[in-house]
């Protein structure tokens, strides 16, 4: 599984951090961090994060 985030679209709503905290987080400066190739076991969380993104900035492959 691969995660891509379109940072031009991302407006830092943080919905992904809540839906999939094992994949997405904010660093101390408030920048979004994510695992680009998380474990397949996290696929449901990853897809929930993509669905929850108001800017549709997350692509799960």
């Amino acid at each position: 599984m691969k995660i891509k985030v379109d940072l031009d679209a991302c407006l830092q709503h943080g919905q992904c951090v809540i839906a999939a905290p094992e994949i997405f987080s904010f660093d101390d400066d408030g920048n979004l961090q994510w695992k680009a190739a998380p474990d397949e076991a996290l696929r449901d969380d990853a897809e929930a994060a993509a669905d929850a993104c108001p800017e549709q900035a997350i692509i799960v492959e």
Partner: protein
Amino acid sequence: MTQRQLRMPALSKRSLWSETGMTSPRIAIAGASLAGVRTAEALRAALPNARIVLVGEERHAPYNRPPLSKDAIEGLASGHPSQEQILEKLLLRSKLSPGDVDLRLGRAVVSVESGQLRLADGARVSADWIIAATGLRPRHLPQKGAEERRYVLRGFDDACRLAGRLRAGSRMAVIGGGFIGCEIASTACKLGLHVTIVEPEPQPMLHALGTRVAAAMGNLHRRRGVRLLTGRRVHSFSNGNVVLDDGEALEADVIVEALGTVPNTEWLTGTGVDLSDGVLVDDRMIAAGSSNMLAVGDIARFANLRFDATCRRVEHWCVPGQTARRAAETISALSEGRSPSGGFAPMPSFWSEQHGMRLQSFGAPALADTQTVIEGDLSQVGEAPIIVEYARRGELVAVVGLGARPNSLARHHARLDKATIQTMSA
């Protein structure tokens, strides 16, 4: 699986009605916006053999609505990029592939008769399961007059019409100071219009945000140049003016009616389901009074056990996704002879953008009886980050950030999640 935009015409005719069976149910979804699309996706994943028809009244492929009161209408007003490019950017990325659903756009569902959906084009759709995802439409003022300058905002076509009137220097009267009204007011200010909001309550967004935060938001609007008239109602429209209940006549080139919404449930009349405010559903999203009809999204009136047993409609962007997954679980479990898992307790969240400031809410602030500022100062709204806790009878029920940093809000969300889950088990 690659996500793609859902724009295919009605492609799938593959043995649509030819077979029946427990795991290949025929499912008709009325409403092809966020709730309908997410339900179709969840059903496709859970029941690969289901035969899904998705019917939408709008002619556009399914798209995302929140930007319509914000950057999308700003773009539409400026003419750059083009309408087509703006719609393109709004289209929902979908996990559905062409052929996954029989998508029928540009026609409404008119009624349910003998277990079949009847569509505006005369077609009938037989279904083992019917899912109501028809959403809401804007409420209008009953008063006549000034029709040529009155606008509402719900869909892309509404946004295109209104955008054509957003010219710097024009005078806009926004009737209703809820979220949509406040967002349009903010966008219009940015575009150089002179904006007045008319709100019958003492504060804008009062029921959603409570007195203190609503008052702070009212101050933000005033400081950014909006004329905010609270405790006032529209009496009539006369000579193009908006006449208020205290006799003041507002001159307005463009009038936006932002008075809330009406559920699109007329097509369900006569089916025996409870339509007293949206569609009453149980914790499986099955409509009360029915065994095979479900409702999802803005029209579903459900109890969220995270807070209490009261059934409410919730007009947040997250609800379509949450109720869609629940409805799909229900249908897949019952189709396979299992019982759906018990309980439905999603975490609500909503956001707004006004005057360049993000308001982000988690939980149910409307249920709270007290608000406590835990970071920042409400007099600094729009200038510095603020976080407010909402409690009901001493129990945390919501956290709202005003211009707050997303990493600090995420931490509070985790605490809220724990607190409200405890409430549920208490």
